[in-house]
């Protein structure tokens, strides 16, 4: 029997791997007597795969059988591959045994659409119920909501999970119609809206009745594919911003498209995944969430795509040289955040340290500011850095460009593990960055 599980695990993790969400963050939950497991708000990476991505959850599909025919997906009905399914029992055994050995932080369960969206959702509920009530699993669970499933089922599923996600994948209705003929904007956004509403409703319930069960306490996330369609960065980022504002999503993930099928509507099989573009989007996403930027400050109709040479924050600074140089000992927090080379932690530290005594360049270095980048944009006690020559912004551009080579995560990133609100796991997730 276990041999069988080995094969299923291989097939079902192989088809789940293109989902890039891997975080286990967003909720703190203590262990319980009689149960196994807990959850850590910051998230915990248990390993890193050969592609440098964090492994936190046992990421598998319940089944790779699917009646839908999304052109960009390996599981599409028209693809001739081996189809298998876990039984709820097999899945629970696997999760608990991995968890006990501390291989994982929990389960990330997704599924192809088997028979119907409702039937699939019922299968997911069965598996999670077994895990939660029979195996007393108290660790993290991220579950996929299936587009088109009934509200009542999605609600039941949400009460068993910590996080729910529903992937938009394609940033426009046109792309959906072309590439995911069985899905519509409506079938994706309706459950997303439902989850948002339920989370809010649940918050008030929890205030009213202390023992109300929690509905996806770690919030919801989604994923957008980058590079499968002609949609611009501007479109993707504006959509992302809307999702944060309107649906209060915890995260929007971006996934550089890996060609999995020969199709005239898709990039050819030998297309390299646009990793640098994906990286730029993550950086911009960071700017939206933590640095107080708005999408329209970063891109517009005239410049709809990110500059691949320079990161979005630096790009913004170079286009707004009139706002610089900034005096480190006076500038407000929001402006410090806009200096290339100053991250959220360094900005906070600057505020703290300058209350004590004025800061000079050597002090900034100790604080953790990346002077190599920041030097062009700041003064300390009214002076620019010794020996710095600024001739034209062309020079600056040249100076800055070579510092952004993908995909080495910036050294600065690693020293930022004490971020109060950027979770550690977020930082560790490859291809995101403090900028």
């Amino acid at each position, binding site marked *: 029997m276990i041999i069988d599980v080995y094969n299923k695990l291989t097939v079902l993790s192989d088809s789940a791997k293109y989902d890039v969400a891997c975080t286990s963050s967003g909720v703190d939950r203590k262990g319980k007597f009689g149960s196994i497991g807990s959850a850590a708000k910051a998230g915990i990476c248990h390993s890193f795969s050969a592609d440098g991505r964090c492994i936190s959850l046992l990421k598998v599909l319940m089944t790779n059988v699917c009646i839908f025919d999304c052109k960009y997906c390996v599981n599409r009905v028209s693809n001739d591959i081996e189809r298998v399914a876990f039984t709820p029992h097999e899945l629970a055994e696997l999760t608990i045994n991995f968890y006990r050995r501390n291989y994982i*932080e929990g389960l990330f369960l997704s599924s192809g659409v088997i028979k119907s969206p409702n039937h699939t959702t019922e299968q997911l509920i069965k598996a999670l119920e077994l895990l939660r009530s029979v195996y007393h699993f108290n660790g993290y669970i991220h579950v996929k909501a299936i587009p088109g499933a009934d509200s009542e089922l999605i609600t039941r599923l949400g009460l068993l999970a910590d996080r729910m996600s529903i992937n938009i994948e394609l940033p426009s209705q046109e792309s959906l119609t072309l590439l995911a003929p069985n899905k519509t904007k409506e079938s994706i956004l309706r459950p997303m809206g439902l989850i948002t509403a339920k989370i809010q409703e649940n918050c008030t319930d929890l205030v009213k009745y202390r023992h109300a069960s929690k509905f996806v306490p770690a919030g919801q996330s989604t994923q957008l594919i980058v590079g499968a369609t002609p949609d611009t960065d501007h479109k993707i980022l504006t959509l992302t911003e809307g999702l944060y504002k309107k649906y209060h999503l915890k995260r929007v993930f971006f996934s550089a498209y890996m060609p999995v099928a020969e199709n005239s509507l898709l990039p050819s099989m030998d297309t390299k995944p646009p*990793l640098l573009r994906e990286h730029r989007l993550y950086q911009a996403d960071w700017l939206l969430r933590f640095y107080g930027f708005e999408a329209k400050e970063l891109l517009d109709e005239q410049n709809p795509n990110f500059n691949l040479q320079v990161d979005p924050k630096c790009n913004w600074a170079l286009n707004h040289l009139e706002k610089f140089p900034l005096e480190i000992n006076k500038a407000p927090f929001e402006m410090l955040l806009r200096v290339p080379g100053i991250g959220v932690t360094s900005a906070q530290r600057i505020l703290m340290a300058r209350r004590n005594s004025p800061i000079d360049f050597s002090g900034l270095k100790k*604080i953790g500011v990346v002077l190599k980048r920041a030097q062009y944009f700041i003064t300390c006690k009214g002076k620019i850095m010794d020996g710095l020559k600024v001739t034209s912004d062309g020079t600056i551009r040249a100076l800055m460009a070579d510092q952004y080579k993908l995909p080495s995560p910036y050294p600065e990133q690693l020293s930022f593990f004490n971020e109060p609100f950027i979770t550690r796991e977020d930082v560790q997730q490859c291809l995101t960055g403090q900028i």
Partner: protein
Amino acid sequence: MLDGTDLIYAYDGSFEGLMCCVFESYQRKEIPSVIRPPSVQETLFDTAKWIETDEQKADRVYNSIPMKISPQAQEFVKLGFLTCDPHKEMLIFRFLRLGFKHGGKVMMMLTDDTVCSLQKAVRHLTSESHKFKGFVRFSVYGEVLIAVIEPKNYVLPLLSPHFCDRYRNERFMIYDKTHGMALIFQSQKAELIFVEELTLPDVDSAELEYRRLWKQFYKTIAIEGRNNPRCRMTFMPKRYWSQMTEFDEIVGLAQWQVAETGAKEPQTSLCTLDARSTYKISPDYKVTKKDLFHV
């Protein structure tokens, strides 16, 4: 060699001992240039001054930290002592002197060399211990979970609350090979003990099967087209790999036995530190087969 600036303190390596060094320095109005734990060899012309550990003096210093500096500073110093910084004694010493002079705002003096270095060391400790929350790999032996780690810092005291909470119903042991210590959790009680040597029994077939499944999952989940070993190395440096199942090709270890402990005099004692936080240490605790395992 012997001018006043080269004053050396030698202490017993315990946290309390270090507090006594601070006491001594204030009482004698002198500043040592080195504070040496027993693990560091003395040099030929060494004229170190031995500082006796005295509970009461240590308590006076320790208890004055939250009052004269801040509770955060006290926590910070405790963490500082768990770091692997080779100069941690002098850093803590200088930090406390600064703190007693400037009060609570010492924690904000981020551009000061001492504060900055001690913070760096503490960040190294906390980030290493955060990594181990994920990188620890247990093997199941009967009803007991056992893991081996090789950290640079003393991470066990920081790992203890996390694992004891998560695995409430389990009995487990995390053995820190670097420092010869182990965290043992059984019957809802956590203990840190000194362990000289640990030899593990053969694992059973179920354990081997789950290791195989995990390795297969690990391999499968990587996307080939995005291969990026450098990135992996940044987040998970090679030094962690030796004790991680996914990199272990040789399965099945030798005969097992948990060595009797307590004979060895601890090099650095964490006892005092832990008595003040939530853990209890009994250095003469003996791990016997019966204690840990149902046989």
